[in-house]
């Protein structure tokens, strides 16, 4: 099994993948849920319990409502660096002892940092749930950040960046796209892992200040899925997280507009590229920013436009015109700020970029002019719902869905209503959403080519 301890989730890092379908975010198996599965401790910690007796394991995920987009220019990379330092011990747990203890007890743990949230999770046997809750609560309040641990970890953070970003032309181009779309030095315009110059300068005080500012029970959500009960989780949560005092937490800032009203273009010719890519990113509303009434129709639009091999883009460019080897669209609605609606094409050998761009433009125009059929919309809805059903098959995906929604201010009611809201999207709503997002401004076109330049 591939070992990846610290996942840098988010943004355009995955833009080089052949297909990036929209992530269905729904909990569908227990709409008639018990109220006792959702509660908030007096100190403000939100708790979600997702019982499942499927396998003798439980999964705990603690999500903090803070991410790389809450950093400022000059101090970027703190959220991710701090995520690494969270494994370096407290007054009572030694450096690396957290993970060693989980492993010694037959479990696994990991963590991730995204633009809007930071998450820590463990999978263990049910009788070890108290152990991981005790340790997770401990590092919520008592993290000890020392110079001795920080110095070598800085190199680890920089090696992670080399591996994920600097060794990958597509990832480097993705960072340039983010900057053009959201703005230089704006929250989503800066890399999740931070600028190298910033990371090199971050010190113990910077990390400790960020920790003190954001890590507190009233800025966190604790989700437990698996072979346990709400009663059990409540007892353990009160015992271990309950004593941590709440503190005042600052509001988070996300701009209501993008970098530019003019279309932007980002190109990268790189000796390390064998296969070209054409991509287009439109600034788009999310559930929480911009014209959020379009957020559900945009999920249907992404699916019918570029979700798999029966989508409009694939059928036109790959099957009919044979000018591409793959084509896709994606849209991620669960973002605190604005998000993007993305289109991508892997051109067939010999197809000039200008033809790809013009063909995509034609398909977008055709959809706006002629609309979409009711049948297309229903198929896309069914695909979204099916993906959501299957996402319930894994114990880890449930907590991730709740963490992703609640971590940016969504509610359990939003998750419950997702299937109905997706099903309610009409053909006219899909076209209206497309018209809102596919406009002349607020877009970035990116082209990745081999060194010899544009073919």
């Amino acid at each position, binding site marked *: *099994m591939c*070992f*990846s*301890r610290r996942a840098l989730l988010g943004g355009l890092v995955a833009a080089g993948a052949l297909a990036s379908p929209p992530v269905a975010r729904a909990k*569908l198996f*227990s*709409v*008639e849920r018990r109220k006792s599965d959702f509660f908030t401790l007096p100190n403000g910690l939100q708790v979600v319990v997702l019982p499942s*007796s*499927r*396998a*003798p*394991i439980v999964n705990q995920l603690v999500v903090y409502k803070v991410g790389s987009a809450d950093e400022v220019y000059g101090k970027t990379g703190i959220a991710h660096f701090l995520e690494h330092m969270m*494994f370096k011990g407290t007054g009572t747990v030694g450096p*690396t002892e957290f*993970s*060693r203890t*989980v492993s*010694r*007890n*037959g*479990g*696994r*743990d990991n963590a991730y940092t995204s633009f809007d949230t930071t998450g820590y999770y463990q999978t263990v*046997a049910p009788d070890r749930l108290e152990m991981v809750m005790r340790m997770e609560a401990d590092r919520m309040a008592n993290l000890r950040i020392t110079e001795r641990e920080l*110095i*070598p970890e800085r*190199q*680890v953070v920089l*090696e992670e960046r080399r*591996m994920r970003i*600097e*060794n990958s032309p597509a990832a480097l181009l993705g960072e340039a796209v983010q900057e053009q779309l959201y703005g230089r030095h704006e929250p989503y315009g800066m890399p999740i892992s931070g600028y190298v110059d910033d990371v090199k300068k971050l010190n113990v005080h910077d990390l400790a200040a960020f920790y003190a500012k954001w890590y507190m029970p009233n800025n966190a959500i604790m989700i437990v899925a698996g072979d346990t*009960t709400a009663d059990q989780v409540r007892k353990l949560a009160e015992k271990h997280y309950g004593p941590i005092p709440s503190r005042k937490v600052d509001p988070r800032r996300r701009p209501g507009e993008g970098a530019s009203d003019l279309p932007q273009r980002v190109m990268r010719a790189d*000796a*390390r*590229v*064998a296969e070209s890519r054409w991509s287009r990113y439109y600034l788009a509303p999310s559930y929480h920013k911009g014209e959020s009434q379009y957020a559900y129709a945009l999920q249907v639009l992404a699916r019918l436009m570029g979700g*798999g*091999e*029966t989508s409009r883009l694939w*059928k036109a460019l*790959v*099957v009919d015109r044979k000018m591409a*080897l*793959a084509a896709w669209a994606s849209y991620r609605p669960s973002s605190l700020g604005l998000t993007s609606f993305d289109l991508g094409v892997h051109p067939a*050998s010999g197809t000039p970029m200008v033809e790809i761009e013009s063909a995509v433009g034609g398909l977008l125009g055709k959809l706006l002019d002629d609309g979409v059929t009711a049948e297309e919309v229903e*198929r896309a809805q*069914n*695909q979204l*719902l*099916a993906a959501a*059903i*299957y996402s319930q*098959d*894994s*114990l880890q995906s449930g907590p991730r869905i709740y963490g992703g929604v609640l971590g940016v201010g969504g509610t359990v009611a939003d998750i419950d209503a997702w*299937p*109905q809201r997706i*099903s309610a999207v009409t053909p006219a709503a899909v076209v209206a959403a497309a018209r809102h997002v596919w406009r002349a401004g607020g877009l970035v076109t990116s082209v990745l080519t081999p060194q010899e330049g544009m073919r």
Partner: protein
Amino acid sequence: MSQLLRILAALVVAVALLPAAAGAVDIKAVTTPLGIKAWLVQDKSAPAVSLAFSFAGGTASDPAGQLGVTTLMATLLTDGAETLTSQAFRQRQEDAAASVGFSASLDRLGGRLRVLSANREEGFELLRLALTQPRFDADMIEQRRAQIIASINQSNQRPGSVAARTLMETEFAGHPYANNPDGTPDDLKKLTQQTLKLRAAALLIRTDLVVAAVGDIDETDLARLLDRAFGSLPVGTPPPLPPEWTPPTKARTVVVERPVPQSTALLALPGVARDDPDWYAALAMNHILGGGGQQSRLFNEVREKRGLAYSATSSLRVYKRAALLVMSTASANERIAEALRVVKGELARLRVDGPTEQELADAKTYLAGALALALDSSGAIAGLLHSMQVDGLAPDHLTKRAALIAAVKIDDVRRLARRLLRDEALTTVVVGKPVGVAPGP
């Protein structure tokens, strides 16, 4: 309200009423009226059925001059069948929220089916069509061929992929395991519809078929549907196994230059076969050396103490005719020599001193618990049941496994470490612009 939403609403009630039964894995061995054998774990908490299966014969048995034929054929099995074009076949899957897929490893041609249990008739019908009536339409052959060649080209630029490929080519030089499972662009370009059809006919046989099923389906229903999907396949003779592999006896270092700031390194030693009496000692040794997570010696020495890399791991790889122990790390070009020195130092330390009693005890508790972690989804459970059968294990292995792990003694691991961790058998591959790493001999 869409049809799926109605299914959802029905499921919600059904799931809410289920008793909180313990999640033990109860494996039933099923034999169908037509004689197809399968393992089943019935699990009503999932409204779906997951099937994992495989046929004997993988990419290592690709005939000379046809490298890549098995991978291309496997991809095309779901690109149209009988009267259905590729688009129509895909549409039928989407309408049933079903997915059928095939992929080939070095030793076997594998397949998967996932379908909502309410739509299982349609799911198994689509599987039958793919297995028995694949079309191999000319336009789909061209499309998939171009996609695979593009993927080979791009892999040849990704440092991790280049390192993985180079390791196989070096370690298995002269053996079919050295061949890229995706094939070569030259051979792929020569493959015809006829070659692909012949390859499908040669591999899709009932002899040595392995099947595992998990989900909301009972034995009778499963037997009936398996007979429908697989029943008309002929019996036959699977391709011969690749020849025995002779492990290298000289240390080698291969450097592949790539313009990247970070060098990726893989180190390989001959490993341990799945049926080796020391298999469980090997699991423990690998966990202590670089397996699993953040407790390992490689993690601690390379990453935690020195900050030389984000990742430093080891893993056991098992093939039908070979086994490897592979160490992996990546570090800035200027520091990769140091990282390699530390990794090699850890191999020597484990060989000379063996593990501590505490390390072995920790490894054993991890390995005992790790099995449950693998039961995360029905697809994962089906995969586990499938690989157990390929490995020749009995259904009761899951209950015996804990005792086998508990029985590992420190002397077993010491003996194994002396046997495996030998400098003279070490192959090192580095991809990047490493400073201070000399290729040779």
